[in-house]
C-alpha cells in the first residue's frame, strides 16, 4: 500500500531542509542565483518584505504565472506564501504543486480570527510564531514546520532572537514541569495539551523549527543556529544587498559551519553593502508584521 501526503512525508520533508538556507526570490533569475549559492529551497514571492514595507498597500499571494516560472527554473523545492486565513490562496498554491506553503504574516491577513485549517491540505505548511503557544497552536492546526517570525524586511535580527529565545526558553521550562503544572501551562499558553505534554517529554518541538525575519549577515545566520534553530529563512537580506550571489553563498556556509568562528570570519570578508537596516522602535506599531496572527 502506498500512502501520500502523510504526516511523516510532510514533517520528514522539513527534516531534509535542516542546516540549510531558504531564500526569498521574486523571479526565475534570482531563483537560479539562490540555487547556485546552495539554497535548500526558494520562497517565490512578488515583492520581498522590505519592499512590501516600503510600498505599503495590501500584500497578497504572488501571480501563479510567476510561481510557475520559478518552479520550472530550479531543481530545488519551491515554497510560496498565502495570506493568514486565506485558504483559497492555499488551494491555488496546492494546485500549482508548490512544495510548501508559508501561511505568512508578511502578507496582509485575510482573516482576523481563523488561521487556515492546514489539516485539510495535501501540501505541507510552515507557519510563523513568536512564542511556544503560537507555535503549538499552528502545529495543532496542521503546520508541519515552524519558523520564528522575527520582523521581516528590517535587516534587524533582534526580533528573531527574541522569538527564538522565547520558544527555547519555554521548552526548557516545560521539561521541568510536573504533570499538573503542564495542564495549567497548556491553559496559560492557549495550546493543545497533548502537544504541550509531547514537547515537555521530548524537550523539543515535534516539527522542524527555522528562524526568519531580519537575518542579513552570515553572523546573523550563525547566531540563530547557535541559539538552537534548525535552519534559516533569508528574505530581503540577500537580494537587497550589494552582492547577492556572494552574500547568499556566505550565509549558506555560515549556516553549515555555525560553530566555527574561523570559517565565519573567512566567509564574512568583503561581502559588500548589507541591506539597510531599520530600528524596530522606529516602525509605527500598525506596520509591524510579527504581531499579525495569534
Amino acid at each position: 500500500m502506498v500512502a501520500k501526503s502523510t504526516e511523516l512525508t510532510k514533517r520528514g520533508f522539513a527534516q531534509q531542509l535542516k542546516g540549510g538556507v531558504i531564500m526569498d526570490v521574486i523571479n526565475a533569475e534570482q531563483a537560479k542565483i539562490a540555487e547556485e549559492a546552495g539554497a535548500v529551497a526558494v520562497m517565490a514571492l512578488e515583492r520581498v518584505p522590505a519592499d512590501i514595507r516600503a510600498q505599503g498597500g495590501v500584500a497578497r499571494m504572488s501571480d501563479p504565472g510567476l510561481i510557475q516560472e520559478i518552479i520550472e527554473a530550479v531543481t530545488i523545492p519551491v515554497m510560496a506564501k498565502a495570506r493568514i486565513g486565506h485558504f483559497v490562496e492555499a488551494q491555488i498554491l496546492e494546485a500549482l504543486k508548490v512544495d510548501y506553503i508559508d501561511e505568512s504574516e508578511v502578507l496582509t491577513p485575510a482573516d482576523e480570527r481563523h488561521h487556515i485549517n492546514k489539516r485539510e491540505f495535501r501540501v505541507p505548511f510552515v507557519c510563523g510564531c513568536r512564542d511556544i503557544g503560537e507555535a503549538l497552536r499552528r502545529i495543532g492546526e496542521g503546520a508541519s514546520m515552524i519558523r520564528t517570525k522575527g520582523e521581516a524586511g528590517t535587516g534587524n535580527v533582534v526580533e528573531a532572537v527574541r522569538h527564538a529565545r522565547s520558544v527555547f526558553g519555554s521548552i526548557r521550562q516545560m521539561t521541568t514541569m510536573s504533570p499538573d503544572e503542564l495542564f495549567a501551562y497548556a491553559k496559560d499558553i492557549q495550546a493543545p495539551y497533548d502537544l504541550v505534554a509531547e514537547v515537555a517529554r521530548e524537550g523539543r518541538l515535534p516539527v522542524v523549527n527555522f528562524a526568519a525575519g531580519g537575518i542579513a549577515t552570515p553572523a546573523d545566520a550563525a547566531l540563530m543556529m547557535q541559539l538552537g534553530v534548525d535552519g534559516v529563512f533569508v528574505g530581503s537580506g540577500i537580494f537587497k544587498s550589494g552582492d547577492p550571489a556572494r552574500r547568499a553563498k556566505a550565509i549558506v556556509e555560515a549556516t553549515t559551519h555555525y560553530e566555527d568562528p574561523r570559517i565565519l570570519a573567512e566567509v564574512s570578508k568583503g561581502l559588500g553593502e548589507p541591506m539597510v537596516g531599520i530600528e524596530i522602535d522606529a516602525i509605527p506599531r500598525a506596520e509591524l508584521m510579527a504581531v499579525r496572527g495569534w
Partner: protein
Amino acid sequence: MSAKRIGVLALQGDFKEHAKMLREIGAEPVEVRRAEHLTDLDGLIIPGGESTAIGKLLVSYQLLEPMKQLISSGRPVWGTCAGLILLAKDIGGLQQPLLCALDVTVRRNAFGRQLDSFETDIPMPEVADEPLHAVFIRAPLVESVGDGVQVLGTLEDGTIVAVRQGNLLGTSFHPELTGDSRFHLYFLQMVESGSAAFSAAHG
C-alpha cells in the same frame, strides 16, 4: 570490541537523525564538516538533504577527494536520498558535483514534487526478514545498475530503490526517519565485516 566510529556528513540535511540511530545501535557517530573529520572513521553515512546544496559545500570545503579516498580504502559508505545521488556515477547529465563511485544511473526528483512524496512497505530479504517501512521524499530512483551492483529492494512496479555494490550502499528512501533501525544494523554489519576483512588483509 570498541564502538565503531561512523562518520555522518553534517553539511546539511537530516544528519542528526542518522547520528541518533547509530547511537541507538551502539555505534559512535562523528559529524563530518571538514576533511580532517574524515580521519579514523570505520564508515560514513551521507544523509538526505538537498543534493545541490551539499554538493556545493563538498566542493567549497575540499571534501570530494578525501571522501573518494575513504571509499577506495574499502570503508563502507551509505547514501540515503541526496546521499544516493552524490554517490552515483551518473545522474542523467545534470551538472552537479558527484563522488562518481556507485555504478548506477540515478534520476533526481523522479517521483515528482512534494505532493508525490509517499510511504510504503518494501520486502528486502537481504536486509531483514520482514518488509521495511520506507518513506520517499522528493526521492530519486535508480534507473539502471552496472555489473556487480546488487539490487536490495524495489517497489511493486520494479522501480529500484535500494542497491549495494561492495562497500557502497544506496537507498532512495530514509531509514533514519522511520524509527526502525534494521537498515542501520545492516550497514553496521558491513562496517564490522569490512574491518574484519581489513585486519585479515593487513594484520
